[in-house]
């Protein structure tokens, strides 16, 4: 055994340092002294992750295409090469089509809710052994992303931005046990708190223990104002199971999220929440026939005060100055397009 005293000392020292780091980081919370180090790390690793995922995608597609191309007969080689190439092209087109469809859906949700979203793609995923459900997206401070912004996709609520680097941002997924969001039952307007539970379905705690709910009821986010605003009216999920806890004031309800978290690709960051709560108008079409509980559909928005022409939810950086104090992204001079 060539384990010497000094190597043991180094080990103990480093273990003590890591434990000190953990303590400091947890106690510091959001203002932890390690956030500077985190910023540096995301400035270094963010672009590398972006580049890698961009470089790997075509290679993966090419491998798939070649694998699909079949056997090795020489006389058909030329034909097969061509075939493989075409297949690869086709697959690229299909992938692009899927992405376009996803983007389309996202824009549809955004336009129904009148959010202003910034599209982004998932470039890295936190490991399952880490027990935290996070992803990295390829949009950062340069795209106007800030901490605590809401992240959605075409199906509904994805999560919340926890830290932002120059080119990338980290998103805490709604399934993370540390994720909670105030939510509202579509229709009955009952309020509760939805919490992630990892691989299990999300959990909803309704504030009103007497609330009448049934499986199939749908949930949207409640939304909040202020510096840590959460976009209101984003679809969260559907009630699957209701358990009355004996002795407790609130019911515990299981919620199946609309978003498929294992196959996240294109997402949108809500850079500007809607001016008024869209309520449940953004939800996917109800399976059963129900009278619309909310007559004020935002599609036919009432005549809003003048000088608000921007209802287009395009993700371009051309955002206007808004009343809630966000700085304009570009020069406020009117652009001279023909």
């Amino acid at each position: 055994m060539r384990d010497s005293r000094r190597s043991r000392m180094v080990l103990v020292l480093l273990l003590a340092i890591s434990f000190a780091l953990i303590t400091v980081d947890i106690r510091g919370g959001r203002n932890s002294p390690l956030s500077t180090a985190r910023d540096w790390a995301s400035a270094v690793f963010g672009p590398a992750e972006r580049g890698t995922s961009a470089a790997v995608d075509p290679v993966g597609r090419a491998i798939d295409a070649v694998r699909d191309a079949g056997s090795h007969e020489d006389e058909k080689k030329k034909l097969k090469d061509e075939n493989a190439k075409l297949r690869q092209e086709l697959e690229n087109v299909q992938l692009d089509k899927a992405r376009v469809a996803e983007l389309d859906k996202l824009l549809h949700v955004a336009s129904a809710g009148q959010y202003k979203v910034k599209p982004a793609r998932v470039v890295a995923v936190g490991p399952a052994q880490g027990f935290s459900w996070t992803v990295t997206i390829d949009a950062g401070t340069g795209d106007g992303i800030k901490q605590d912004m809401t992240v959605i996709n075409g199906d509904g609520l994805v999560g919340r931005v926890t830290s932002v680097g120059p080119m990338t941002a980290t998103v805490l997924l709604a399934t993370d046990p540390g994720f909670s969001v105030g939510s509202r039952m579509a229709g009955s307007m009952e309020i509760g708190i939805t919490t992630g539970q990892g691989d299990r379905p999300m959990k909803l705690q309704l504030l009103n223990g007497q609330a009448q709910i049934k499986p199939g009821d749908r949930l949207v986010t409640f939304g909040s104002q202020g510096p840590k605003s959460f976009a209101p009216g984003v679809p969260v999920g559907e009630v699957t199971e209701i358990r009355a806890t004996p002795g407790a004031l609130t019911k515990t309800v299981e919620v199946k999220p609309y978003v498929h978290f294992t196959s996240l690709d294109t997402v949108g960051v809500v850079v500007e929440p809607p001016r008024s709560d869209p309520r449940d108008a953004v939800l996917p079409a109800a399976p059963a026939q129900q009278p619309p509980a909310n007559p004020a559909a935002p599609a036919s928005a009432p005549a809003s005060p003048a000088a608000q022409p921007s209802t287009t939810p395009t993700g371009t950086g051309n955002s206007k100055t808004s009343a809630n104090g966000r700085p304009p992204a570009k020069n406020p001079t009117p652009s001279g397009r023909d």
Partner: protein
Amino acid sequence: MGAARALYAAVLIVVGLVVQVSVLARLGLPGAVPDLLMLVVIGMAMTWGPTAGCVVGFAAGLCADLAPPADHAAGRYAFVLCLAGYVAGLFAQRGRQPRQSVVTTILVVVVLAALTTVLYAGVGALVGDTAARNVGLGRLMTTAVVYDALLAPFVVPLVMTGARRIDPQPLMPI
């Protein structure tokens, strides 16, 4: 030779970490994600000994704690990988000659894959993060062991060959 080692370790850590989060994690394998970073640490620790092993493990873990998708308290992976590097270095250096057969390597990887998963959850529980309760720890551990053992014969010998070429002497304390 210290600088060359440090550079080699830094390059491997960055590459290992980026490939792990941007390629392996996005494959969407059931259960755990192959822990490439741990394999890289094990490879260097098995060549350079326990002291270098725990230093390299600490550095790699700290990078994993701070790089983008991470959202847990910094220091958790540093703690776990530091210990993993030490154990791997110790294991490889028992006896006269460092053992370098593939079987030994896989054995070390299997033991450490299980150990790191449990240890990571344990450190989290110690500081009040109970998220590990929400997943099947057994299934996660099994898949982690299987993936890491499958990946090990390709990664660890390669890392060890490179490490030996840079400096064959184990970094032993005086």
